[in-house]
């Protein structure tokens, strides 16, 4: 086998899986991740269907392996800027932003957070909690080393140069304000794109009242609200603190606008009902769906189990969220077009999975195209699902289109198969 390096862009489940499989063979893997932590979107989930395994526990060993593997070189807070050359000889420019905290010296004791005077919305927690300008995204984030947000750090943005509160609190000499952004040049033989997905901004769909009514949540907000390591430590506390008795879950939010079914929302919405029943057993839960998409051998059983526990499923044709005397209600037309009302304390929206907003610029950088929905396009969607028009560049996971975790993992394996078969 020729000795070749591989670049993997994105350290979510697909990117991590591919990196580990490649690294096992002795190849050098450069894993580039935009965020300060690895694990992607999956680590935001408390439990995953259908077996309700704890996602954090499930992924932690993989994350540790990625961090410890000698021949995986991880670039956090990094993005690909430029790519030249062709398969077998790509020249890659990486921009690595300064973390200001040493991955070697820091032991993750968290002593630096408290003294930091800055308070910011925590994006990882969907803005449901605050964080400091020096912080890790959530408890259990890996690597367990904070990063400083240079735009908001008073020392770094120059608003209060003398503030070195975190540095003074650090006992391990881990904080270095002089660290600079870096540009790195890499040479690789193949590139795997595993940049994942975004969720549709539900604010744009005004009929769902998101942003207008405080107790309308997105699915990702609910995932974090339910999580033990989330903003409420897993307590289902509503934004206005009202008691949670009745919950409406609306599927297919943005499906019509996007023109496709995201394939996973029905299942995670069913999972939410399971979650809610677990914490609020008497809660009344109603799911509003268009078509129940529960494909594959094990999903229907999970759905039936939840149905058994008292979930209610309504097929809707049209739907609108309104508020009457500050009480939320879902106005819907059922299959026959008959109008009905469901009163809810909380409404959860399951939005379409959409391409990452960076897809366009990355596609240009890589010299590959996007399909009509905006995801990266593969050479032949049906017969060669991970290869692109450009030899040596592969697309895996949700960067290629909506899919669940096992399908993302399978694609990672498939791309590894392709790369290793090419390098032999």
């Amino acid at each position: 086998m020729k000795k070749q390096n591989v670049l993997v862009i994105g350290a979510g489940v697909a990117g991590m899986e591919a990196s580990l499989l490649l690294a096992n063979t002795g190849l050098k893997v450069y894993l580039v991740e935009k965020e300060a932590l690895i694990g992607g979107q999956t680590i935001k989930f408390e439990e995953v269907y259908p077996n309700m395994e704890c996602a954090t526990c499930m992924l932690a060993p993989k994350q540790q392996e990625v961090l410890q593997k000698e021949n995986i070189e991880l670039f956090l807070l990094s993005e690909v800027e430029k790519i030249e050359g062709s398969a077998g000889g790509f020249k890659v420019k990486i921009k690595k932003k300064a973390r200001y905290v040493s991955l070697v010296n820091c032991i993750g004791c968290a002593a630096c957070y408290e003294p930091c005077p800055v308070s910011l919305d925590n994006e990882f927690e969907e803005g449901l909690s605050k964080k400091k300008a020096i912080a890790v995204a959530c408890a259990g984030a890996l690597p367990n080393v904070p990063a400083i947000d240079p735009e908001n750090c008073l020392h770094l943005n120059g608003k209060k140069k003398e503030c070195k509160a975190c540095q003074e609190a650090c006992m391990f000499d881990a904080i270095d304000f002089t660290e600079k952004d870096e540009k790195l040049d890499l040479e690789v033989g193949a590139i795997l794109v595993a940049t994942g997905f975004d969720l549709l901004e539900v604010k744009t769909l005004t009929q769902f009242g998101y942003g207008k009514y405080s107790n309308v949540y997105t699915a990702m907000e609910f995932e974090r609200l339910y999580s033990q390591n989330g903003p409420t430590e897993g307590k289902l506390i509503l934004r206005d603190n009202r008691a949670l008795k009745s919950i409406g879950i609306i599927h297919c939010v943005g499906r019509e606008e996007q023109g496709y079914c995201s394939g996973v929302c029905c299942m995670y919405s069913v999972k939410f009902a399971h979650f809610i029943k677990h914490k609020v057993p008497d809660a009344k839960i109603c799911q509003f769906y268009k078509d129940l998409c529960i494909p594959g051998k094990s999903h229907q059983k999970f759905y039936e189990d939840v149905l058994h526990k008292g979930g209610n499923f309504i097929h809707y044709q049209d739907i609108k969220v309104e508020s009457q005397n500050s009480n939320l209600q879902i106005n819907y037309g059922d299959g026959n077009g008959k109008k009905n009302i469901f009163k809810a304390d909380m409404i959860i929206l399951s939005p379409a999975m959409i391409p990452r907003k960076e897809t366009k610029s990355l596609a240009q950088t890589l010299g590959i195209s996007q399909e009509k929905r905006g995801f990266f396009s593969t050479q032949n969607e049906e017969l060669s699902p991970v290869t692109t028009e450009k030899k040596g560049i592969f697309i895996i996971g949700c960067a290629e289109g909506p899919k669940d975790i096992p399908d993302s993992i399978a694609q990672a394996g498939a791309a590894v198969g392709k790369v290793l078969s090419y390098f032999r």
Partner: protein
Amino acid sequence: MNDNIGVYVCECGPNIKDRIEIDKVIEEISSLENVKTAKKFSLLCSNDGKKFLAEEIKKEELTHLVVAACSPREHEQTFMNVCEEAGLNPYLFQLINIREQCAWMISDKEEATSRAIKYIRAGISRVALHKTLQKKEIEINPDVLVIGGGISGLETCLSLAGADRKVYLVEKTESLGGMASKLSQLLPQQGSGLSLIKEKTKLAENNKNIKIFTSSEVNDVRGFLGNFEVTVKFNEKDSEEKEIRVGAIAVATGFGLFDPKESTQYGYGEIDNVLTAMEFEEMMNSGKVSLKNGKPPKSVALIHCVGRKERGYCSKVCCLYSIRFARYLKDKLSDVSVTDFYIDLCLPHKADQEYFEEAKNKGIRFIRSDEETKVKKSGDKIAVEYKTEGKTDNITVDMVVLAPAMIPAEDTSKLAEMLNIPLDVTGFFKEVHAILDPVSTPIEGVYVVGCALGPNNIPESIIQSQAAAGKIFSSLIPGRKIEPEVKVSEIREDFCTGCQTCLSVCFYGAISFDPFKGISVVNEAICRGCGSCVGICPSGAIRSKHFTYPQLYQEVLEALR
């Protein structure tokens, strides 16, 4: 006893130092029997710390090492590496977690200190009973056996075969191609199933590193990852057998279809012109869709989810191919009316919905119904009775096409037994981990791909095949040896009564029964040290090499004292 146990307490900066009285810990521990030395250090995982430990191991001539620091998940491997470099067997080491389990948990310093002392004492008593364990290396054979010559099997072969890796393809029937070769025009970019299969078959036949056995079956499989021995039986030539040796096995045996006769509501087999999807594919392949009387149908009903109720799952591909049939009918027969009865439209891939919308625009009628749709004879025609949104209705048509559930292939359970891999409740092969490892089985080196795992479409089957190839490339590298787990179970011959209880709990198929000695035997190359057999053995004959009863007993005793 001449043990020289060294105990090192990490201050972990302020993390342990500020919350535990380390000097008191050292004082207590130093006086224990067999403890040669007890010391503290500011940060043992740092480079200075590791260097210090390595020097101590040599200088103090340590026979065992105990480190009291953080969680094993953080640094067990770090310190095992230090042992190895310093010439101490890494299994003569124990890491005690006094950070997460004492310092961070207990606010009272005195309480935390006494707890830390207990835990360290427990670790010392345990480590004294540790035995040297040696890593083993096993030579491997990089070749691969693929069972099943459908689209998945062919893709697996083509992905893997090369100068350094031979692939043997065993196909039960006379020709390659499987179910996909029976499919007519697939989705827009796919061409026909047959042309797809022809192309792949040709590539496989022309590849000198792929050896194809048709009309053959796998008769017996022995061995483990890297070293499987397989007996292949040739059906045509009676009793002729061939032995092959491979390092990995990929099962790609495909699926069967639910027989609509099992469900009387559809009148299949009794009413003329009620067809299954496969029968309709045959018509499409012949280029002529016609009724029994030879005339083209003027009205066709497509019924989804046939057998879903009985099987308990959605087969995930039927919605899309039913839409494909409907579109074909509309394109082929200008005046045909097509009605499609679905329960829920399952269109989970990004391009599916557009394909459906186009069908709607062609004038195909889609009716949302339930599982009770009935097909009855009505004169020369066929009546379809259905319920939609609470109302019962019916239509009369010339032809009905049923979309039956995908079910496990007929030999699935036989093969599962031979390979010692489990099936799930639906009867398909079961993944070792349905989320994180969707193509692997509990038997290392045995993979399952395509519809043998459950309903999948062609792209998914191809992906899984390539994924299994990726896993094999990654784990079975020509010329490289593999290192099996060291902390395995062992069975003491004198104690084993041969009851075979352990066989039933071993998830990895590592235990077999030796009929001559009348005892169970652990294959150390397969065992992963989970300990299930240790717990279940009624005669206490099995022990886990790094978790023996004396080790655990002493550890617990000290921790509770």
